[in-house]
């Protein structure tokens, strides 16, 4: 599978390493070349300096042949913009996007972007752990 990851933060770099080690073809896009230091030394994919909210950068990252696009920068708005470009301009089959704000998560789900809010998920995990210990 060909995957383009927008944002080489901790999550982006970790996801890139996981997919890469399973033999997927990964391109990571970030506006800060310094963030590529987070990639594991064994990473065989491509690290590309570029803005994921820019069509040309996505094209350079090979979005036209990509099977999936994942937006995991620190900015919710950058993520939804990048995700919408991938989905509606380049028709990438699978587009995932991180949105910290749970309210926007719902809105973008309804606009057809597969949005995931770590805020909601993590709060649920914490609650689950707490209530288990309390038993």
């Amino acid at each position: 599978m060909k995957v383009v990851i927008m944002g080489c933060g901790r999550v982006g770099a970790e996801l890139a390493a996981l997919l890469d080690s399973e033999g997927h073809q990964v391109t990571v896009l970030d506006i800060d070349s310094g963030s590529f230091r987070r990639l594991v030394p064994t990473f065989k994919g491509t690290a590309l300096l570029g803005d994921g909210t820019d069509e040309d950068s996505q094209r350079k990252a090979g979005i036209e042949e990509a099977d999936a696009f994942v937006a995991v920068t620190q900015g919710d708005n950058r993520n939804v913009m990048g995700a919408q470009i991938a989905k509606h301009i380049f028709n990438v089959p699978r587009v995932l996007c991180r949105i910290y704000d749970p309210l926007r998560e719902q809105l973008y789900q309804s606009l057809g972007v597969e949005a995931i809010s770590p805020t909601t998920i993590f709060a649920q995990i914490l609650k689950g752990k707490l209530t288990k210990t309390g038993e």
Partner: protein
Amino acid sequence: MYIIVVGGGRLGYYLSKGLLSEGHEVLVIEKDPVKVERIEEELGSICMQGDGCEGAVLEEAGSERAGLFVAVTDEDEDNLVSCQVAKHKFNVPRIIARISNPKNEALFKKLGIDVTVSATNLILEHIGQEVPTHPLIHLLELKEGKHEIVEVKISPDSPVVGKQLKELSLPPGSLLILIIKDRGITVPTQDTTLEAEDRVIAVTSADREQALRTELSGS
């Protein structure tokens, strides 16, 4: 009309001032408390502190009854998102987004934001009108010496189209530093080929400028 303006920077400030003087009811939504304070001091209590991309903030602002929603922050992606929230969650009938990257005009349209205003495009158009056939634009004059940085557009009938950099005879002291093509910017090497519609950024000196223009544009 009730108008919501997202972004209380310079543009948001002057825009709100203009709208107020035309008798509209205006609410500015701005993240930065310092900017909020400045607007309130100068224009009255028309400003709300908050993130104009958040549904809860737009709800508190009474977006349902807004007749017009204008997003003018510095960031294109923020303007896109707040406009999409206003349109899809609150059904604001008219939406305008400011964009900085001219390419986003088509993108925003595709994503449902029909009216965009791009200062970049407006200024570019004006330059095009002011200097219609001028193939050389001054970008920067260096204070310290006689050097300057210029942009030259390669017209389709230029003699250098299809030539590699090493085949050119540039005037001494001139150097092509960047080539802007449709597909992106490249730092040229001696093997780079010039194509029609390329924009070349070059460093040259005032007295060699004419020679550089002649070499690149043939006139």
